Structure formats: C-alpha cells, structure tokens
C-alpha cells in the first residue's frame, strides 16, 4: 500500500534570533562573552534561529507545547478530521519528562483519543525512526492516518546556568573546551509535523513515501555527540551513577558534548550509505530532482563531493535545498521543518512527478538515514 505525506506543520518559538543576539538569549557564562562563539557561528553559517527560552533563560514553551503546536498546524491544514488519526509517533532528543514517553504528553495536549503511540529516542535521526515506524504501520493497513511529530528544545541544555553550575567539569578546568561549546552555538528550538495517509490529499501536492533506509555505525565508531557523561575517556560513570544529580551537574555530566574531531566520520558514513543505496539499485542519482539534507552542503564541500562527481553519482549543487540557515539546526525536527517550508517556499519550484531525496545523518554514534519521496497530486 502506498502512503503519502498529505499535510505538514511547524512551530518555531519566538522571533528569529540573529547571530549577534544569540548570546543574549543563552546568556554569557559568568558574564564573560564566549571566545569561541563567533568562530563557531561563522563555520555553521546559521543566520537566524529560534529559542523557547527568553533572555532571562526562562522557558517560554515546553517541548510538548511546541510539538502540539506543530501538530495542530498540520492537522488544521489536513483534509481529514483528527479523529481519523490512528497513530501518533513523536521524536525528540529529550522530552520534558524522562518518563513517560513524550508521545503520551503530546497526545494529551492534542486530546487525540485512544491512538497508538510511539516515542522514539535518539538525536537527529529519531524523527526518521518515528516516520519509518508510522509508515510501516500504515503499510500494514492498521491505520488510515498517522501523525508524526518531532520537536527539540535544546536551549534548556545550552543556557548559561548549565555551564556555570559545572564547576569541576572540563569546561571549567580547560582553557578552551571546544567540544562542550560547539553545539551551544549550533542548535536551537522548533518542531515539525507530518500527516501520513493512505491516499493523497484531494487538493495540492502530497509526497508519496517510496522508501526509508538507515545504517548505524555505532559498532565501530566512538560516541561523537552525547549528554550524560563528564567527557573524560577514563571516567565511565554516567549522570545516573553519581550519588546525587547535583554532583553529576557539577562534574559536567549533564552538558551536551560533541567530539568535533570525529565529526568527519559522519560525512564519510553518509556517503557510504548513499553509495550503498546506489549499488543496491534503490537510489538512482540521475532521478533525484531535489536533495534535502539535514547538513548543508558546505559541510561536505571537500574532496568527497568531487569524488562522487567523478564516480558519476554526484548531486548537482542546484538540487540541494535547505532552510537550515534561516530556521536553525533543530536536530530531529529539522527535516520536518524543512519539508514543510519546501512545499511552500518560492525559492524552489516543486512539480508533480519529481523525486525528493532526504538525508538525515546523526552524529551521536553515527546513524545515517535516507528518505525518498515522490511529489504527487490526486
């Protein structure tokens, strides 16, 4: 059975925050401006982003709120009533509560009665995991419609108080702790939602899901992005192994970390998965009309793209599209926020019959995910 994305929605909290305003929202740690901010922002090229905290670092929207708002917009745009939704799949790096799963909370907020729920846990690729599970349930004909929502509230992890409290952490003791600051100037908040149905929407364009594939390389590569350990190789404790949570925080075990040195593996494994799909005949590079990538092309702008061109499987730059620079890197929500705008923006013409290849790599422990869509209308 074919399954279609028939409606999309998104929620971006507050006004767009410019590069120079970012530190006034997240706060300067010990009132000292970061020496790494400008350098990191220059590298990620994100111009504006949104935060669900205010300039006093107080939460303005919970993660559940944002997810529900994106879902409401998606359902309001749909040509079916919400009672048709049989499944709710929700993805986030960290819900508001460690337990229960975030889908329960979002369901309550949306007042969706007696739906099947699924919460996926991971980082950027968790939205693709949720989408795949919902797609499979639809393919088994268990539901007529499924709602897939992804939401991220990273700023709560990135606010100055987190760093100020980590008094014995690597952040406090090293002169420069790049791995702890890197994501602070990268990630921001937002939510996206997709409605899946077993037939295209009666009006406008729908996206048929052709295939979803994912390859994880955690068996070989070390952890690259994480929360929950103090970031010292010899220290195996996780945040739950300290006597108190206060001690874990003090030691920096609750800080978000990215081992930037390992990041290049993500691009490599992304290319490997892409070549694997080409080799298996699943993906045909000549038939890709639009390429939506969670990472922007400048991250790949090195020899590997030249190699792909040389091997006859490169995707021309004009087919790449992203809204990362204006909406920020919202982790797992990024692709849904991207798809929502892709169908509406004037920047790109989307026509019936065109194919859309999406790529969401997760640096956590190197999971690379791929989604192929075809633009259809009823």
């Amino acid at each position, binding site marked *: 059975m074919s399954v279609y994305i028939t409606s999309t929605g998104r929620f971006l909290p507050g006004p767009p925050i410019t590069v120079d305003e970012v530190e006034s929202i997240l706060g300067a740690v010990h009132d000292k401006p970061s020496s790494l901010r400008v350098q990191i922002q220059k590298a990620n090229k994100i111009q504006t982003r949104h935060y669900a905290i205010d300039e006093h670092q107080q939460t303005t929207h919970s993660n559940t709120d944002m997810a529900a708002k994106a879902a409401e917009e998606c359902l309001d745009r749909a040509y079916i009533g919400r009672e048709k939704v049989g499944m709710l799949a929700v993805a986030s790096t960290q819900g508001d509560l460690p337990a229960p799963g975030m889908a329960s909370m979002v369901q309550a907020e949306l007042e969706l009665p007696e739906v099947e729920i699924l919460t996926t846990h991971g980082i950027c690729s968790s939205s693709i995991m949720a989408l795949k599970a919902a797609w499979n349930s639809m393919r088994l004909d268990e539901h007529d419609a499924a709602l897939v929502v992804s939401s991220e509230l990273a700023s709560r992890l990135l606010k100055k108080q987190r760093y100020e409290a980590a008094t014995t952490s690597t952040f406090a003791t090293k002169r420069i702790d790049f791995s702890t600051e890197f994501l602070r100037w990268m990630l921001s908040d937002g939510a996206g939602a997709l409605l899946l149905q077993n037939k295209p929407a009666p009006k406008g364009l729908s996206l048929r899901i052709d295939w979803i594939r994912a390859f994880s390389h955690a068996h*070989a590569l070390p952890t690259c992005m994480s929360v929950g350990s103090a970031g010292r190789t010899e220290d195996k404790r996780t945040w739950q192994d300290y006597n108190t949570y206060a001690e874990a925080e003090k030691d920096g075990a609750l800080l978000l970390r990215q081992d930037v040195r390992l990041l290049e*593996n993500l691009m490599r494994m992304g*290319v490997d998965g892409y*070549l694997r799909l080409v080799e298996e005949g699943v993906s045909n590079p000549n038939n890709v009309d639009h390429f939506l990538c969670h990472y922007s092309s400048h991250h790949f702008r090195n*020899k*590997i793209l030249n*190699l792909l061109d040389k*091997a006859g*499987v490169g995707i021309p730059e004009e087919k790449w599209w992203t809204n990362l620079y204006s909406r920020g890197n919202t982790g797992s929500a990024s692709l849904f926020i991207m798809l929502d705008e892709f169908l509406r923006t004037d920047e790109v013409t989307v026509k019936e019959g065109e194919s859309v290849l999406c790529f969401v790599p997760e640096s956590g422990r190197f999971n690379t995910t791929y989604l192929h869509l075809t633009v259809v209308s009823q």
Partner: protein
Amino acid sequence: MKNGEIKIESDEKLISEEHSEDAGLNPHAQVCLQHLLRVWLGFERDLAKVPLLRRIDLGTYTAEDHQLFLLNIRQQVIEGSRWITRTASSFDRNHAEIRSTVISHAVDEHRDYEMLEKDFVASGGQLDDILNMERNIGSEALHGFLMHKSSQPNPIDLLGAMWIIEGLGEKMATSWAERIQELTGLGEDSTRFMTYHGHNDSEHMERFYQTLDSVCTSENAIQRIVKTAKVVARLYRLQLEELEHGGE
C-alpha cells in the same frame, strides 16, 4: 574525501592542470570508483576498531604506541617497493603507459622506510629494535598476497591495492600526524613518514583517475580491481590488529 586521496606517482612533469580538468571517466571506471569508495569508507571506519588506532580517536595514544606502530609498519613499507617493482615487470608492452607510472611510483617510494626508521628513533626507539623487527602476522599475509598478485600477467587489479595503501598514506598525513604529536608531545620529526604522504595529492588523484580510466573498461576489470581492494583492506587491517601481538 579528505582522507581518501590516492598517490599514484609524483612526477609533476606528467601532470598538467589543463589535463586534470573535467577528465571524465568511462562508465566502467565510474562504477569501479563507486565501489572503491565504499571499500575505502568501510576500511577507514573499521580502522576505528583497531585498539591502537582507537586510542588516537579517544585521545589516549602514547609515544610507546607510536613506536609500536612504526616498528610494525616498516616491513610493509620495505616490501611495498618490492611488489610495486614486481608489478611493473609483469605488464607487457600493451600496457607501457601504466608500466611507466608504476615504475616512477616505485622510484619515489623504495627508500621510504629509511624515513620511517628515523621517525622511530625520534620517537624514543632504539634503531636496532626496528632493524631487527620481523614481519608481523598480518604483514606476512599482506606481503604474500601482493607478491602473488603482482606476479600475474598484467596485474591491473593492483590498482585496488594502491587505492587502499595510498589512501591510508593520505589519512596518516591529514588525520593522524598532527594529532599524534598533540597527544604524545613528540615533535614533527617523529611523524615525517606520515606527513610526507600528504604532498601533491590532487595530482596523484588525477593520475589515479587517468590510470583507472585506461585500464578499467569491462565488468571483469571492475570485479578484479574491487576484489583486490577488499582483500588488501582486510589484510592491512589484520596487520594493524597484530601490532600489539609482537609478531607472535
């Protein structure tokens, strides 16, 4: 691919910028390159599982690790020039072009091991130790396979071997050398063998493409080149896995 560069030869006179621009590969060579890329990426990823190399990733690599690495890699570097010259002599007159390429490559590298010995001493090792080091178990297997392959008539499959070995040379130069100095406190003179391989990479890459384009013109050629790349990747990893077993 930053770390997937191939060094085929370094005679810059043979390479002109104009020649290197947009030299498209034939369709067989393109498919071969797709497969070779995957073999390389899998090899590179699996290197992260080799204990000694994992310590580079985790930041716990020591000067002793570096000595052990150099100690074990020397035999392969010495034998490398032997299989490369054997390869050259196995090409007949219909393969004169590739033979020239291989010969100049061998000339370039046949005394690289001397640089490696100096690195070892600069890392705190005793010259006698490295001079007396035997091939480890993986080096034996790798050397045996490469000498066998290079003795076959017109061994174009060895392009797959070069892809892996030269790619690793490039990886050492761009990813490992500086990091090793940072982690161990050793000076630049301890990683000259590694950094040396980073030079002239775009020219080497172009030369590799040209050779691939000229010899990879059938399904059979793809299969041979890719299979050899896979075997060499596996045996090279075996050699690195055996580093800490002291050749026993």
